[in-house]
């Protein structure tokens, strides 16, 4: 910013702007703070106080309860497993396709790019896609939560641009040393693209962890539900999905209803909150490296 001459009105604006943006920022995170605080509070405090971000009481009751139920633990494991495997699969599909498309001498390159862009503008829609997944026998399979999302065309284009910006000389000298195209990809391009790999690993992981739609469409068997679907059942449909008869022993206790809901939201959000600092650090850099310049 250059030094600007500032009028009194300008200074007033600055102060208001400062305060206003601070309020906006707080509004964006306050709901999360309340949910986290509330999940540790006792049921009595939740009914007594309407809004707080520091609980007076501290209780792990609701967490103990949700992790004692088979339904919840199972769905968390499903989500973790699908996210880990899915991220690797998505990276594999995206990067192996982006690299050849970044080589300008490749025949048919522009045709493939045009077909990709066309698929971003026009698609078959929900039902034909459902029928394809169904005909592949993927209904009720965890692969249905992964394969249809394997390539995000926007991500593909950014990665392709990143590869294009790597100097050609690197590739040529590797060729002189007797490196095959595959060797160049594996030994030179992938190591160079570590920040981009990290960025898109995070993006894909978030997308798969957050995906609710695929499970809704393709998974009917409720023992295979990822945590997002369980969350929808518990909170939006107010179904007591956690009362899994198999996990109910003689010492069955009445669950703390309100804080339990908050705890379920926290657990479904937790992985994102944990990786967010890394995500935040990486995406600006990663996106910049592959910024879409056409």
């Amino acid at each position, binding site marked *: *910013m250059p030094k600007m001459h500032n009028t009194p009105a300008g200074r007033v604006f600055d102060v208001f702007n400062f305060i206003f943006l601070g309020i906006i920022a707080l509004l964006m995170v306050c709901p999360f703070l309340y949910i986290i605080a509330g999940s540790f509070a006792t049921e009595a405090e939740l009914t007594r106080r309407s809004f707080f971000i520091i609980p007076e009481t501290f209780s792990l009751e609701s967490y103990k309860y949700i992790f004692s139920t088979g339904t919840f633990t199972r769905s968390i494991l499903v989500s973790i497993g699908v996210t880990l495997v899915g991220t690797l699969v998505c990276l594999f599909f995206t990067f192996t396709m982006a690299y050849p498309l970044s080589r300008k001498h490749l025949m048919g390159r522009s045709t*493939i790019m045009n*077909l990709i862009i066309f698929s971003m503008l026009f698609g078959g*829609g929900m*039902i*034909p896609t459902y029928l394809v997944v169904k005909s592949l026998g993927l209904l009720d399979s965890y692969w249905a939560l992964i394969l249809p999302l394997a390539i995000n065309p926007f991500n593909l284009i950014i990665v392709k641009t990143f590869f294009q910006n790597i100097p050609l000389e690197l590739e040529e000298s590797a060729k002189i040393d007797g490196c095959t195209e*595959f060797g160049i990809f594996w030994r030179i391009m992938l190591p160079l693209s570590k920040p981009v790999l990290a960025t898109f690993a995070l993006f894909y992981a978030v997308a798969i962890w*957050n995906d609710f739609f695929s499970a809704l469409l393709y998974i009917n068997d409720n023992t295979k539900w990822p945590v997002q679907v369980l969350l929808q059942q518990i909170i*939006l449909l107010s179904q007591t999905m956690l009362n899994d008869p198999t996990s109910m022993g003689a010492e069955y206790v009445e669950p703390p209803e309100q804080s339990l809901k908050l705890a379920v939201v926290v657990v479904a959000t937790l992985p994102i909150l944990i990786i967010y600092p890394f995500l935040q650090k990486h995406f600006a850099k990663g996106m910049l490296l592959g910024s879409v310049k056409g």
Partner: protein
Amino acid sequence: MSEKQTTTITKLQRLKRDRWLYLLLVPGILYFLIFKYAPMWGIVIAFQDYSPFKGVFGSEWVGFENFIDFFQNPDFFRLLRNTFILAVLDLVFFFPAPIILSLLLNELRINSYKRTVQTFIYVPHFMSWVIIASITYIFFTTSGGVMNEIVSYFYGKEINFLSSPEWFRPLIMGQIIWKETGWGTVIFLAALASVDQEQYEAAIVDGAGRFRRLWHVTLPAVRSTIVVLLILRLGNFLDTGFQQIFLMSNSLNRSVADVFDTYVYFVGITQGAYSYSTAVGLFKSVVGIILVLGANKLAKKLGQEGIF
């Protein structure tokens, strides 16, 4: 003739030389063929009376019957109205929000404060719609929700936000503004950062105040970004976020909540009317593509760069 031959040979040689690259392309191409292009081909069932037992080849062709059925269905106008209203509200309230927010952020002089604000406002973007909807339920429910406690304190009684049709649209708008405005600033801030600083200095020399600098330097600089995003937005004009609306709709607000996308899901997936709902989906896609091409053409006519 001989020249043609040499090019054929070179082409073959090029194919052979790049065989590893083509091998790398295989998984990606398979992905697009199976999950993007096969469904496009599957659209033909919109013109059939598709039966899963007979398959696409065995099913009977019915021409435009499914489309005619849909246009004659009383649901059609309700869906069109609901989808259209949400799309317009989105364009009026949600679209400008990131632009305004990034202009305000851009006026912040203290960089560390700016970065802190940015870190906070990006957070909701990374949450799933289920989490956003859950938080909305927890805050707006009549059984002890924070919002309703505030409302009943000032207004004397509670409002059933979650199941009143008149509150559905404000909630949907509030959610999307809350979730995506912060993230939407990323692209505008990048555009603002690339504005030539000398232009500001020149404007200051010419005696331009802050507002005039905003109007004459900053806004023109991000105009092309705004136009491109507007065109893309128009392309998805009828794509009211399926997940968001699906999660927020219930039997009591259905009259305003049903949009093309949720209708396709309910009629297609839960009731199994494959052909009919594919026709509905195709109608929506075609309108979308016409809108994006039209907007692009209009932008070019107005002297802006389009996206094609």
